[in-house]
């Protein structure tokens, strides 16, 4: 009943040059769309992977992130003694009081200052983040002005190598090690002793408390206990959820930006496809008349031309997606809106992005091809045959 698929495919192949040019326009649009979605996805993935499901982060109620949070010392002690806190093999509570402050450091290359997050840690901070590996040097000693830097910090900022020292909080801090926290946000932080940082920055409070749950299922109970305690004006979140929320605004911004840009660009690509398809119809008027004379219905003609345009869109989409997938090997750093600190992350591709990008390319093909296809199907047989 239908005109064979190969008819549409081979017609595209016959006019390879036009097809390539038109598809390139669509490829560009799909590339932009996919790349920005991959960026948002990469950001989200990095921040989500930063957290562990069994860890609980406690911050001041309604402070969006650790940067804005303040936890009093007496509040920290109350939470520390909560029965839901896991106890390690050595009898110590898996609980850490941390502080997060921002400093500016000159970026490598441009020497432009940018924010870096410094995390003041306590003894158990490492045990709570088993993903962290020391790459170089040693751990900082408690009670000293020693710090260790995440790999992304070393890579992106000046003066953060082992043995160098950084000046902030009116003191010099010696870098004694470099750590890798995989593709998590910690790789973009500098870690040092919490109490030393509190002194240096004259901040009498902690930013956050973090502990591992004795039993993962106890989360809701401990959350209610903390949030309902009148002495505490704190809120508790699973660490995974905490970081996911941090990525939300930025990821959403990127997605909206990506889709708006794409929609604007796509107008050009759609017009390109439309011109190509109108030309294809105009060049094949006699052919259309012949097919109709042989008994093919108007609808079959419509489908054949629409198919051609959809294939055009799809080939552009695939090309754009292949280019975008190469971006997976690129890491970039940007300022996270919620913490205002530099965060390094990689473009990340997933099935959803592939489906979105290809659907969008098909949509462009459809919108560009529908009017030419309708024109082809509307033709009068005798008039069309006269075009021979």
């Amino acid at each position, binding site marked *: 009943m239908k005109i*064979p698929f*190969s*008819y549409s495919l081979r017609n595209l192949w*016959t006019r390879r040059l036009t097809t390539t040019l038109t598809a390139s326009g669509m490829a560009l649009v799909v590339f932009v769309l996919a790349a920005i979605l991959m960026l948002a996805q990469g950001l989200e993935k990095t921040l989500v992977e930063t957290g562990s499901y069994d860890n609980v982060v406690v911050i001041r109620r309604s402070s969006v992130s650790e940067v804005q949070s303040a936890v009093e010392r007496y509040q920290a002690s109350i939470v520390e003694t909560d029965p839901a806190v896991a106890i390690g093999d050595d009898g110590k509570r898996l609980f850490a009081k941390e502080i997060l402050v921002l400093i500016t450091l000159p970026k490598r290359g441009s020497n432009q200052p940018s924010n870096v997050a410094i995390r003041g840690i306590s003894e158990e901070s490492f045990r709570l983040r088993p993903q962290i590996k020391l790459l170089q040097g040693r751990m900082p000693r408690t009670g000293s002005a020693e710090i260790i830097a995440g790999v992304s910090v070393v890579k992106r900022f000046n003066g953060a190598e082992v043995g160098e020292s950084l000046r902030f909080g009116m003191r010099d801090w010696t870098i004694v090690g470099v750590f890798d926290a995989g593709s998590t946000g910690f790789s973009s932080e500098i870690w040092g002793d919490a109490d030393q940082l509190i002194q240096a920055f004259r901040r009498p409070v902690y930013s956050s408390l973090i502990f591992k749950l004795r039993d993962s299922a106890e989360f809701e109970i401990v959350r209610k206990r903390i949030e309902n305690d009148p002495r505490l004006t704190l809120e508790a979140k699973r660490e995974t959820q905490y970081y996911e929320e941090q990525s939300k605004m930025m990821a959403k911004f990127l997605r909206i930006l990506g889709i708006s840009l794409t929609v604007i660009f796509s107008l050009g690509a759609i017009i390109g496809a439309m011109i190509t398809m109108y030309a294809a119809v105009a060049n094949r008027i006699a052919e259309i008349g012949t*097919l109709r004379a*042989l*008994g093919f219905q108007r609808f079959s003609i419509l489908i054949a031309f629409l198919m051609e345009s959809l294939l055009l869109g799809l080939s552009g989409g695939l090309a754009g997606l292949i280019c975008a997938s190469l971006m997976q090997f690129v890491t970039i750093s940007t300022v996270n809106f919620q913490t205002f600190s530099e965060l390094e992350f990689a473009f990340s591709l997933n099935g959803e992005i592939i489906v979105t990008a290809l659907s969008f390319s098909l949509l462009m093909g459809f919108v560009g091809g529908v009017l030419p296809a309708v024109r082809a199907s509307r033709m009068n*047989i005798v008039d069309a045959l006269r075009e021979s």
Partner: protein
Amino acid sequence: MENKAPIVEVRHVSKCYHRGSQIIPVLQDITFDIGDGEFLALMGPSGSGKSTLLNLIAGIDKVDAGTITVGGIDITTLSEMDLARWRSVNVGFIFQFYNLIPVLTAFENVELPLLLTSLSKAERRAHVEMALRVVNLLDRMDHYPKQLSGGQQQRVAIARAIVTDPTILVADEPTGDLDRVSTGEIMELMDTLNTESGKTIIMVTHDPRAARKAHHIRNLDKGVLDSDAHP
């Protein structure tokens, strides 16, 4: 041959075209029969309405008045979709410029009308090969139209026209674009189809040598058909 029952009955057919507000009468009250198995040549000066008449019989154009019955079916009453279905079964088209689909091979071009039937792939292949054997181009079935000469392309087009075993074959100047040798071959082929396979052929032509193969020649002049003439 004259005694054969008519397969095409044209009754009081009129047709005119509109060009702006101007009305151009093309055919006026045409009535005639074409017998089953007949080979009819329609001749006449340019613009006399030959193609128009052929198109009406082939069901790709609509009459203004009158009826056309082909194989017992009054095609002037069919809806557009039914008419398309009717053409796919009953009409084989041969055009002046062959009208093969350039992106399809000879085999695929011939197979095209069979895609509108319920035949299986294997059955289609058998039919296509048979049709290509009739036109003696089986060895060229994987060639694309541009790899074939004009005469060969027209033979592929003839294979495409006969592959569905239609009720009538219509040919509008089938040799109009061919040299003398190819014209001879094509006319030979049409003659064989008519005499050996009993195909009814209606052919529009300017070429008296081509018309010589036909049993009947009818002249159309200013939309009026004159009486029978034998070649």
